[in-house]
């Protein structure tokens, strides 16, 4: 028995015989599928970007404070850790963006909501998210390489 909660699912029939009660579906017993992962990640990235938005707020605030605070802010955003956070922000943004558009399509048309359609579309969405993120970072790195020359 792999699941510890299974202990609580032991019951008895009306004739007293031991019977295993059915286990209600929990997050842990579902097999992960693309649509489910994307749905969870949509919420996670939304919450993460709420914290990440401080970075954009700080950028605009420092620009309004003057050249020195702005230089300091550039030091943070150009640091390796800052760059990692920005990369995380970008992939979170594209996931939330693409899945947000998917939600708007679902809400406005009421179509593509069958189980197999949702799974087909999830694969398309994952491809779109990865393409957009890689495209953006190709542009960023391309610009940096051109500036170095």
């Amino acid at each position, binding site marked *: 028995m792999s699941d510890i909660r299974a202990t609580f699912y032991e019951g008895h029939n009306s004739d007293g015989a031991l019977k295993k009660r059915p286990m209600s579906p929990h997050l842990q017993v579902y097999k992960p599928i693309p649509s489910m992962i994307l749905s969870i990640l949509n*919420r996670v990235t*939304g*919450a993460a*970007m*709420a914290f990440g*938005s*401080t970075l*954009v*707020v700080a950028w*605009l*605030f420092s*620009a*309004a404070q*003057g*050249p020195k605070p*702005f*230089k300091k802010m550039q030091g943070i955003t150009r640091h390796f850790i800052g760059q990692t956070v920005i990369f995380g922000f970008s992939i979170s*943004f594209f996931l939330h*963006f693409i899945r*947000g*558009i998917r*939600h*708007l399509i679902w*809400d406005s048309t009421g179509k593509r909501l069958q189980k197999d359609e949702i799974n087909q579309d999830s694969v398309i969405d994952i491809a779109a998210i990865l393409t957009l993120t890689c495209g*953006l970072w190709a*542009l*960023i790195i391309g*610009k*940096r390489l051109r*500036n170095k020359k």
Partner: protein
Amino acid sequence: MIPSHQNPRVMRSHLGRVRCLGVGHNAFEHWWTERLCATGMAPLSIWFIIQLLRLSDAEHKDVVYWAKKPINSVLLLALVLLTFNHMRLGLSVITEDYTRGKIRMALNLLIKGCALFMGLLTISSILKLMLTSPNKL
């Protein structure tokens, strides 16, 4: 005493009296505003990413001149308003899913307060960039 729904002096309609009294309070408004904000944010945030890409190696002066252009400051203000409203609504959906009672109330107030503070801070920064002369910044 006459019950209020039979009282001819009460001018409020029956619909008006029961509005927002359901379990969801103003759930439809909440849901609809979140979608409306999202629809506005989608093009604005792509515009903002393109602008950030252009400004990625800019000096302070360039950023100030960029932010002073009316079209840029107006689009920035719109993006900030929609984003923090969408953020507030989205985060409160999360707290409403996973918390109960006083904790939920406290978290929702915290979310509203933080969103308001961050939004106002950003808006005042944008206005300062807009209205201060570049050599004084």
